């Protein structure tokens, strides 16, 4: 394998029980690393419990921007002994394991750091985590001043003592790191630093929530469900600033029906949920189809069926999203791959929903919403996201027939007209009908919008050298991992199509697939749902499917390995 620390950066993992404070180390560490000019990437895997168990945070520090997890661990900070078996498969001969011998016991190959004892000496065991932070910072050659400055500002509101103690604790760890480095016990390859103080660090949930706000979202109604909850939580925190109605519904059925009512009355609204909650919304999705009511649904996938693995990741709900709701009506499904596109797609979702009067589903997953890295500040220009609402006249008819099937959308109280919305088959004025010829016209009207959507959505595009013969396809959060793996392969004959527009699929997809000698699909599910969709839409069958469904994201190394095998076959 070619993956060297030089190429891939350094892979650090913080692991321990829920409640032991790895999150504290993580939050401080990633910020300090970023401030110091490193490219930082972090993702987490955790159990569905509040205390105990084993959780881990994987951090990559690199000379170039990175957006994918590594399998290998270079530096493991183990806060309890269960961690070692939990992460066994990621630990190599070169992995440096740092831990407190008091906690871990006598594990061979461990670099013992008496964190607790050192903390006690400082007067409080709580500082063990800060010591660990200093230690890692030192091992990574972080500028001590940057570290101290950040700690000062971070703890400023806790008082001078806390600041001083934290700086002291971090310093203790930092000093220890020098001993280790100098003794030659720990040596990481050098990582270049950059000036990127203009970049931001947010996770997928935050990116989606901010994108929604930029998209004019004014109302979010949802029922808590991991990993969908992050979006509504973020919006709740910022509701005062952004004039948001944030309502925790009694169930997901209420949530989606509220969102439809909100759009009807003139607001832009969304819901956020996961597979089980979305399953409950499917009648409401069908209602959106019939009412031609815009609505934005964030569906953050986790492994199913049923309750499944609530805090893990999967791409197992694509088909559910595609076909949810009885009867036939158009929809749009978008699966952002990165923080930038999470923001952009989420913003765009509101415009698309409004423009075509269809449900738009943002299909993310636990991996995407819980991952963050430094990235360019989200661009806010152009600022126009005016809703396409018309002032009604007395003759206004909500479902007026039009060539492209899109009827001007009025709202109650704005104009002289009256605005209906009807879940039965209806006439142009939205009144219930049993005229079966009208029925056919209304079905055609609704479906016609899909033609328009297909015309207007962009092409997929292909990434790779012009001599490509193999195409690798993936979608959503898997794309950047494939991208890095393909870069690692470094072959002229391999190209990638990274789908983010799941439905309707980009029109140019078929043309590329037809030309390929070899096609490979990569998905985080067991039945290759995207492969099935592409087959259905283009008739194309993939030669290889690389599928992962143990609840964890792909890693770069395993994808490189899997792709190599496919390319050999």
């Amino acid at each position, binding site marked *: 394998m070619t993956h060297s620390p030089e190429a891939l950066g350094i892979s650090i993992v913080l692991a321990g029980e829920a409640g032991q404070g790895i999150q504290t180390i993580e939050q401080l560490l990633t910020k300090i690393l970023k401030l110091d000019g490193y490219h930082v990437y972090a993702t987490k895997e955790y159990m569905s419990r509040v205390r105990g168990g084993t959780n881990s945070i994987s951090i990559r520090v690199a000379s170039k921007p990175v957006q994918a997890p590594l399998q290998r661990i270079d530096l493991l900070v183990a806060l309890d002994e269960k961690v070692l078996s939990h992460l066994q498969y990621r630990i190599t001969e070169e992995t440096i394991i740092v831990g407190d011998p008091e906690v871990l016991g006598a594990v061979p190959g461990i670099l013992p750091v008496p964190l607790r004892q050192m903390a006690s000496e400082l007067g409080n065991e709580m500082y063990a985590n800060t010591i660990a932070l200093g230690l890692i910072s030192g091992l990574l050659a972080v500028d001590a001043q940057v570290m101290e400055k950040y700690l000062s500002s971070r703890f400023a509101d806790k008082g001078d003592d806390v600041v001083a103690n934290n700086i002291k604790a971090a310093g203790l760890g930092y000093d220890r790191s020098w001993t280790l480095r100098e003794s030659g016990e720990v040596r990481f390859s050098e990582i270049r630093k950059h000036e990127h103080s203009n970049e931001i660090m947010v996770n997928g949930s935050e990116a989606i929530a901010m994108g929604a706000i930029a998209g004019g979202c004014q109302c979010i109604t949802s029922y808590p469900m991991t990993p969908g909850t992050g979006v509504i939580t973020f919006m709740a925190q910022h509701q005062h600033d952004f004039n948001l109605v944030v309502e925790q519904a009694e169930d997901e059925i209420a949530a989606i029906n509220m969102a439809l009512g909100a759009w009807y009355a003139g607001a832009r*609204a969304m819901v956020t949920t996961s597979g089980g909650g979305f399953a409950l919304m499917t009648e409401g999705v069908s209602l959106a189809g019939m009412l031609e009511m815009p609505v934005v649904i964030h569906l953050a996938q986790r492994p199913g069926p049923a309750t499944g693995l609530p805090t893990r990741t999967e791409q197992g709900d694509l088909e559910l999203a595609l076909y949810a709701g009885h009867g036939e009506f158009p929809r749009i499904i978008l699966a952002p791959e990165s923080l930038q596109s999470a923001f952009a797609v989420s913003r765009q979702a509101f415009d698309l929903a409004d423009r075509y009067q269809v449900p738009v589903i943002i299909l993310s997953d636990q991996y995407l919403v819980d991952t963050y890295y430094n990235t360019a500040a989200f661009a806010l220009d152009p600022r126009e996201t005016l809703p396409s609402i018309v002032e009604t006249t007395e003759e206004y008819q909500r479902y007026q027939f039009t060539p492209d099937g899109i009827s001007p959308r009025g709202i109650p109280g704005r104009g002289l007209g009256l605005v209906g919305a009807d879940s*039965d088959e209806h006439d142009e004025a939205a009144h219930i009908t049993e005229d079966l010829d009208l029925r056919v016209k209304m079905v055609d009207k609704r479906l016609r919008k899909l033609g328009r959507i297909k015309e207007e959505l962009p092409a997929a595009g292909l990434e790779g050298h012009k001599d490509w013969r193999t195409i690798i396809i993936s979608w959503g959060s898997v794309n950047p991992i494939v991208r890095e793996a393909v870069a690692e392969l470094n072959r002229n004959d391999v190209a990638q199509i990274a789908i983010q527009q799941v439905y309707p699929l980009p029109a140019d997809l078929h043309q590329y697939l037809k030309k390929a000698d070899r096609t490979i699909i990569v998905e985080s599910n067991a039945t290759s749902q995207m492969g099935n969709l592409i087959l259905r839409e283009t008739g194309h069958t993939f030669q290889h499917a690389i599928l992962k469904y143990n609840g964890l994201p792909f890693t770069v190394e395993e994808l490189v390995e899997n792709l190599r095998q496919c390319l050999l076959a």
Partner: protein
Amino acid sequence: MMHFDMEKIDIAWCPGCGNFGILNVLKRTLVDLKIRPQDLVLVSGIGQAAKTPHYIKANFFNGLHGRALPPATAIKAVNPELKVIVTSGDGDMYGEGGNHFIHAIRRNPDLTVIVHNNMVYGLTKGQASPTSQLGFVTPLQVDGVFEEPFNPLAVAVALNASFVARTSIHDLALTQKLFAQAIQHKGFALVDTFTPCVSFNKVNTRQWYQEHTYIVGDDYDPQDRNEAFKKAVEAEPWPLGVIYKSPAKASFEENLPVYKNNKQPLIDRRVQWEKLEALIESKKI
């Protein structure tokens, strides 16, 4: 009254159905209260009662069976200037929609909720509804209903609903009085309205309602919650009138932070670009 009448429509109800009475009284009340059709939204689920919005010239949202309250709540939250009235059936509201009934009362949006309580599922041809009485025989409940009938008033009192009333369509004057009070009440106002289904409920007929109800006396104080509960569980004869009024409380919309310092409906507000820029900026560290 003219402006709430539809032009030429084919009303899908059976001759003699109590829904006609509710429709007419409602239209008359709306005229009396000088409500503009443009400012009114009628919301319903699915059922015979739920067709009512199609027969009144106003804005309407005829959604899914059981799901009238969530969109109604949201409509009001998005534009508090609208008058929002829910007209739906007993099955719709207390059966499929039971969870929303509970939680909408807890939220207390400023809605008028008229439940056409015919103690049966009309549209689906005569199955028991949650309010069907013990022993009521149907094609599905062949030995008669044995489940404890749902008492919407008692439950609403238990949830401390802000306005709880019962009427019966055999008494048009009372019905109009209560509709008017409910519409003028700020907060969740329930008017459970007894109404005959001439096709599928041969027990609880217009006459039966007449014979088995009485109007609560002027001395009855709907503000006493314990008394209200006692009244609410009375049956045969069933009390009609305002059964309960909770101590004054803010409506859902009033409680929403978004309207605390600014009464503009959401539609009139735009993205706060500066604040969003600042928020993004704050993520640089």
